[in-house]
């Protein structure tokens, strides 16, 4: 290295190295917000774009794997990067992470990723698995300090008991949140004793807060989980890609607890209602049996009465016939009975309806 006026003379590459060291010391990580321009992906691996505002523009470089949410020209983003002077003397930002900024950009990025993952079938209904009726062991991924976590635990406890809940305490917003949640998903999926369900919850927040759940790698981790997933993020109106990739979507953390288990109070009411109705049912069945026996008895009585009636009618008919054969009835019709021998000179007895008289036979003629 030559010296001039006590000033060291650098080689070009040394100067670049020293300059980069200085930059790294002064700005190890810079966070910059601006608009994307000239976005392009080279060889499917390297991403180049400019970040700009009204007063300036800087070249940016990153790998495709670091890009967790889609971006395109005109989109406003916040990036974390380290500044660098390349060996060609070009100033550039090496981007470590990047996310859309502002409602318009977040929505645009959400739509782009949704379309991409939908085409891959990550949200297909056929992929959805049902959750176990009442799980006994679940893995819960949330921030234990968040209100949504407290709501979930309380409502779950109110509704059901006897569940082992393993909680992975993670950040649910911010730059590192997606990776933490992915690690927690992997953790539960690698357990020897797998939980029956993995539940991911987070309460409401701004679109920016909830953008964690639109991270591509996180959405893919949820979709590929061996253990069925239940995701409840934000409020009822919020929709995240994590929701769409989950086996079951809950509208809120509280709703996740409602989906996961039945309400024990409802079950208690139901079983008492069922048992109570049994008593009424038995009474009803006894009444049915009584009516049946009554009906059978009435039938038997009817048969007996009918038989008796028939016998009475037969006896009356016999009585009627017999009455026609009574000699008194015949005498009443004007006939007479005659007793004695039918020989001339004998005395015979003649009986009519009213008198008995004697008479002598004076003549007998054979017919």
């Amino acid at each position, binding site marked *: 290295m030559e010296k001039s006026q006590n000033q060291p003379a650098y080689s070009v590459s040394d100067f670049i190295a020293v300059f980069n060291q200085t930059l790294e010391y002064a700005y190890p990580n810079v966070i910059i917000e601006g608009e994307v321009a000239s976005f392009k992906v080279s060889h499917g691996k390297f991403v180049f774009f400019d970040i700009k505002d009204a007063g300036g523009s800087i070249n940016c470089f990153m790998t495709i794997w670091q890009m967790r949410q889609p971006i395109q020209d005109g989109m406003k983003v916040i990036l974390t990067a380290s500044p660098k002077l390349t060996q060609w003397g070009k100033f550039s930002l090496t981007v470590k992470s990047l996310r859309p900024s502002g409602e318009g950009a977040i929505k645009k990025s959400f739509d782009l990723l949704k379309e991409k993952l939908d085409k891959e079938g990550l949200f297909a209904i056929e992929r959805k698995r049902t959750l176990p009726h009442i799980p006994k062991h679940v893995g819960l991924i949330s921030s*234990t300090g968040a209100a949504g976590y407290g709501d979930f635990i309380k409502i779950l406890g109110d509704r059901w*008991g*006897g569940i*082992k*809940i393993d909680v992975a305490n993670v950040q649910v917003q911010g730059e590192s949140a997606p990776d933490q949640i992915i690690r927690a998903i992997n953790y539960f999926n690698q357990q020897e004793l797998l939980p029956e369900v993995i539940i991911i919850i987070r309460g409401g927040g701004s679109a920016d807060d909830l953008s964690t759940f639109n991270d591509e790698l996180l959405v893919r981790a949820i979709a590929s989980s061996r253990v069925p997933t239940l995701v409840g993020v934000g409020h009822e109106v919020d929709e995240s890609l994590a929701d769409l990739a989950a086996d079951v979507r809950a509208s809120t953390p509280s709703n996740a607890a409602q989906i996961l288990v039945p309400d*024990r109070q409802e079950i*208690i009411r139901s*079983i008492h209602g069922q*048992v109570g109705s049994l008593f009424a049912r038995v009474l009803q069945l006894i009444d049915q*049996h009584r009516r049946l026996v009554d009906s059978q008895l009435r039938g038997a009585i009817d048969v007996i009465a009918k038989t008796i009636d028939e016998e009475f009618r037969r006896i009356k008919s016999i009585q009627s016939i017999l009455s026609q054969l009574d000699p008194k009835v015949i005498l009443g019709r004007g006939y007479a009975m005659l007793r004695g021998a039918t020989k001339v000179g004998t005395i015979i007895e003649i009986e009519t309806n009213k008198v008995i008289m004697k008479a002598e036979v004076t003549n007998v003629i054979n017919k």
Partner: protein
Amino acid sequence: MLSTSKAIQDKIAELTAMVEWFDSDEFVLETALEKYQIAEKLAAEIEDDLTSLKNEVQIVKQKFDSEK
């Protein structure tokens, strides 16, 4: 705790089957009262079990803020 939870579901299934018996062709009036008393006792047991069960929350020791 887990086995008790299993028992609750078994008991609920048993009670459901018993209730269905009352509407089935197998119903016999002579044994109905006895069955009703068993069902009543079972319902009380289920209520006790359901009321007393608590969930067990355990925070996983592993940290997730960085790769291991």
